[in-house]
């Protein structure tokens, strides 16, 4: 099994890649880790005439701290995010999420920019990016813009990225004090993709009440979303089991749940509620007040 013919181009810089995108127009696709695109090309679900490989661009790889933010280059592999000392200590939710993606080999090739651009409804990163309110930087020939996570995911495998744009980095505010988090997913046994995945982030105030609650859910609907009904039902409250359960019951509110051979829409919605409850409980249990 191999892809239809195409011309391969390795870009040495973002500028060069942008030039190639301009030159080849709609016939070109960016190639990062290739772990979503190459399988699709083998199945001939995608047949681009030109591949612009951005995987080797140094400026797109790595993790840096900048003006109080943590910035991750678009072509940084999942394994590097999962193993980074900075991410593990200051943005643990993202490290946990990256470590839950696929298997070692997938994490050694797949990249954060590729995962977000591809925006598979069962991908893990989008849940954490939503919960962490990540900011996505897009560059094109005419400049750069930053898109908030909530505006980035548009629909099934559709994002705010416009033709000719490259996702160059994602930036995050580090976790604050008295914050607990976890990423929990019901794995699809063959691939490891999330049937449903829940990223939960809770900050308690000094009295032990929930000051800030963020819940990102993937797998349930056509795109990852923030479960704002859950968040507001818990904010300001004491994190007691009953209260958490009542809040988590809103996890699937207003979502048109997907159905496939792995799970019916009803089962997915139930998984979302159960995993939201568990994720919130687990996140809160790790907070040291």
């Amino acid at each position, binding site marked *: *099994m*191999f*892809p*239809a*013919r*195409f*011309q*391969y181009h*390795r870009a040495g810089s973002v500028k060069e890649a942008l030039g190639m995108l301009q030159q080849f127009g709609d016939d070109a696709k960016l*190639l990062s880790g*290739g*772990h979503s695109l*190459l*399988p699709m090309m*083998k199945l001939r679900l995608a047949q681009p005439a030109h*591949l612009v*490989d951005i*995987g080797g661009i140094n400026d797109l790889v790595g993790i840096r701290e900048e003006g109080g933010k943590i910035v991750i280059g678009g072509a940084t592999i999942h*394994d590097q995010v999962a193993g980074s000392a900075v991410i593990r200590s200051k943005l643990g939710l993202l490290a946990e999420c990256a470590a839950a993606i*696929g*298997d*070692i*080999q*997938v994490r*050694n*090739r797949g990249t954060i920019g590729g995962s977000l651009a591809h925006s598979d409804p069962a991908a893990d990163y989008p849940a954490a990016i939503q919960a962490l309110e990540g900011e996505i930087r897009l560059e094109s020939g005419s400049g750069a813009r930053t898109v908030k996570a909530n505006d980035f995911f548009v629909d099934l495998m559709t994002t705010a990225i416009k033709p000719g744009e490259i996702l160059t980095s994602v930036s995050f505010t580090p976790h604050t004090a008295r914050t607990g988090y976890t990423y929990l997913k019901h794995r699809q046994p*063959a*691939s*490891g993709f999330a049937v449903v995945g829940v990223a939960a982030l809770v900050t308690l105030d000094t009295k032990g009440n929930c000051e800030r609650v963020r819940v990102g859910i993937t797998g349930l609907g056509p795109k990852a979303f923030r479960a704002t009904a859950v968040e507001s039902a818990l904010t300001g409250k004491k994190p007691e089991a009953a209260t958490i359960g009542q809040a988590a019951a809103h996890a699937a509110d207003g979502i048109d749940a997907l159905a496939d051979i792995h799970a019916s829409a009803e089962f997915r919605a139930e998984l979302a509620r159960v995993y939201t409850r568990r994720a919130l409980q687990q996140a809160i249990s790790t907070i040291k007040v």
Partner: protein
Amino acid sequence: MRVTMTINGQQRSDEVEDRMLLVHYLREVAQLTGTHVGCETSLCGACTVLMNGKAVKSCTVLAAQADGAQITTVEGLAKDGELHPVQEGFWEEHGLQCGFCTPGMLMLATDLLSRNPDPSEADIRHALDGNLCRCTGYQHIINAVQYAARKMRGDARKSA
């Protein structure tokens, strides 16, 4: 296009089709047929090789993407006629039956032990997530990786 890479310590350079997958390059051009093709869909891990020291599924990497890389295949594990500890582990602990999955298992185990010299059974099971074996039921594979881990730690102590 022309690709140049170092495979098991030897550099080679060939003219290939842009769409050629690394696994086909290794097997058909470099004639290293130890790397197996199983599912061709990135799921079974039989095609696992090390690319710049990291385990990757070579059915889901273009030869072009590996241009300039260091590749290690199962043929590169043994040194001077001596089995690598992971190979010895599979031999001693009966870590295979038909052997189809074995090259991929060996390469994955090499990556795992380079990050974690003392993995627990749970660590090993978790690491084997992307490698399927239809024969052994995995238990002997886990024993084999544990054997290799012990051997490699022992050797490290001796040389330290």
